[in-house]
């Protein structure tokens, strides 16, 4: 079994360089887990990838899976905490200085100016997800019902998502 210290060190380093969304992580983790440390076979790595995508957490939940493999439950815990530590710390620093940053003229106008791009990105996420998961008429129907519920009712979105999961289980 790998020592927890080694696991902690590996995942902190990954957490520090893990820029720009989850997909950078796949080749990186594959290299470290499969080729360098031989904790997993390629097959297991891919299964773990599928498995971590079953959860609401980010793709980086792959750290939990690989950490579990390397060191059982403690390994999973250490890996998860360490991979997320750098970005949580950074967000806390950003949050702390946010009010001060906002008061600087050039920063606040830049921030205000880039917001339309954020909107475009959110819309693009819907598009990309749609391309991969709207495979039939059933899915389109669920989408329309969901859209209507979110747009015109006050039902909690969590309830709607859980309900849709049940529908998926029953239909699937």
């Amino acid at each position, binding site marked *: 079994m790998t020592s927890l210290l080694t696991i902690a060190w590996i995942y902190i380093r990954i957490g520090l360089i893990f820029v720009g969304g989850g997909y950078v992580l796949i080749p990186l983790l594959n290299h470290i887990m499969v080729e360098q440390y031989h904790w997993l076979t390629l097959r297991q790595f891919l299964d773990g990838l599928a498995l971590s995508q*079953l*959860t609401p957490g980010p793709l980086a939940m792959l750290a939990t899976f690989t950490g579990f493999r390397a060191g059982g439950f403690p390994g999973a815990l250490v890996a998860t905490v360490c991979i997320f530590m750098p970005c949580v710390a950074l967000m806390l620093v950003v*949050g702390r200085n946010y009010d001060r940053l906002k008061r600087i003229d050039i920063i606040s106008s830049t921030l205000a*100016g880039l917001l339309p791009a*954020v*909107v*475009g990105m959110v819309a693009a996420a819907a598009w990309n*997800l749609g391309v991969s998961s709207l495979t039939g008429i059933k899915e389109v129907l669920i989408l329309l019902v969901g859209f209507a519920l*979110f747009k015109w009712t006050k039902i909690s979105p969590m309830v709607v998502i859980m309900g849709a999961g049940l529908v998926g289980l029953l239909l699937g």
Partner: protein
Amino acid sequence: MSNNTQKVSLTDIFLTFAKIGLTGFGGGMAIVALVERVCVREKNWVSAEEFMHGLAFGQILGPFSLNICTFTGHHLRGIRGGVIAAIGFILPSFLLVTLLSWIYFTYNKLPQLQAALKGTNPVVIGLIVVVAIDMGRKQIKGSGGLLMALVAFAASVFLKLNAAWILLGAALWSLCFSYFRKRLT
């Protein structure tokens, strides 16, 4: 902070983000859409604008779904709030992955959970679309904004550009704009 003078309790923060972390199937933007619904619309914890700033900053390092939770939590109760929100959000997935990993390495089989995602994925798309419409209505003013939104959309969908790059580009664009406007006036 918009209008709540009362401090939000850490328990409340934890429970809210745990619920989000339990139900937000569908990846990064699904979480963002959920946090927007719950923390901006329902609870008025952050303003729409602050939320989007948090989202932009959240592209710098790590998963932005987690980052927006940390940002919102920090906004409410400082460092403790941010850490509690992050833990609350990750905990359900952590427990789920641990359980599934245990099953996987013991029985060498993946549980059949994909069927449930068949139902949640379309509904999550609906949620994201609604959030995009609401955000767009508020934040896109004039043709310049519309153009930027369309370019960002196209860059992401057709060029498959990373979100961080798109935002960096948008920031430069907007920086130049505000710089020149200042020099002219």
